[in-house]
């Protein structure tokens, strides 16, 4: 059953499209984590009169951690799906190829 699902996902390119979407989301999240401090700094400049000194820093760290977790989770899903859909095929062939030298010896 799972093999049929796998074949369908690969042959219809649905798997590749889904992984591509997740990969793009994951990588853009990581870059957003790097850019986020600049955005928060700009906002902090605008609203600094409404916050105490510690509040923006806490918000910044919270948002960075949340985005980092989301990106790691997305990339993990990408890797698991890639391994499931595309890596096993290669490994299987690897096993098929390996007995040949033993036979010749």
């Amino acid at each position: 059953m799972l093999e049929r699902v796998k074949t369908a996902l690969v042959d219809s390119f649905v798997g590749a499209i889904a992984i591509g979407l997740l990969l793009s989301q994951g990588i853009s999240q990581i870059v957003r984590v790097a850019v986020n401090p600049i955005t928060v700094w700009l906002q902090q400049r605008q609203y600094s009169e409404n916050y105490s000194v510690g509040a923006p820093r806490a918000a910044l760290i919270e948002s960075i951690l949340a985005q980092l977790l989301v990106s790691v989770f997305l990339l993990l899903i990408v890797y698991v799906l890639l391994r499931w859909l595309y890596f096993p095929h290669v490994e299987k062939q690897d096993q098929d190829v390996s007995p040949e030298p033993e036979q010749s010896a």
Partner: protein
Amino acid sequence: MPHPFAFILAKGWDSTNAQMPETMQATLRKVLIDSHVAAIAIAVLLAGAIEFVFIALFDPASRVLSFLTIAVATNSPPYIPRTVDYAARNVSLQASLFDLSVALNNLACAWLISRWAYGTGPMRILRNYRDKLMRRKDA
């Protein structure tokens, strides 16, 4: 009836063995290329960049259009307040700038993936894929 994506399959997952070296040590990069995942991610990121550029330009463009429409309809320049309120000064401009930064972010990601996976720019990759599709259509 031939498979609609047979030309891709011929170079992709089904013939991974033809592209892989004898040792069959499939690296993540090779798998991403052979499965076309990298190309799809690049296309999605570029589409996202274009979308956010449009979103960023939509608000200022609609304001300009509204200004011109009122000017034409009333046959006189619309009222422009001497003092700009907080929202007009900061929030509207910030939203556009933020959308532009997201678009730049997406472009940078597309460029990074394409450099890492293929070693060339994202547009060249997509052009190659387009050429493959065109060749397949002609054949």
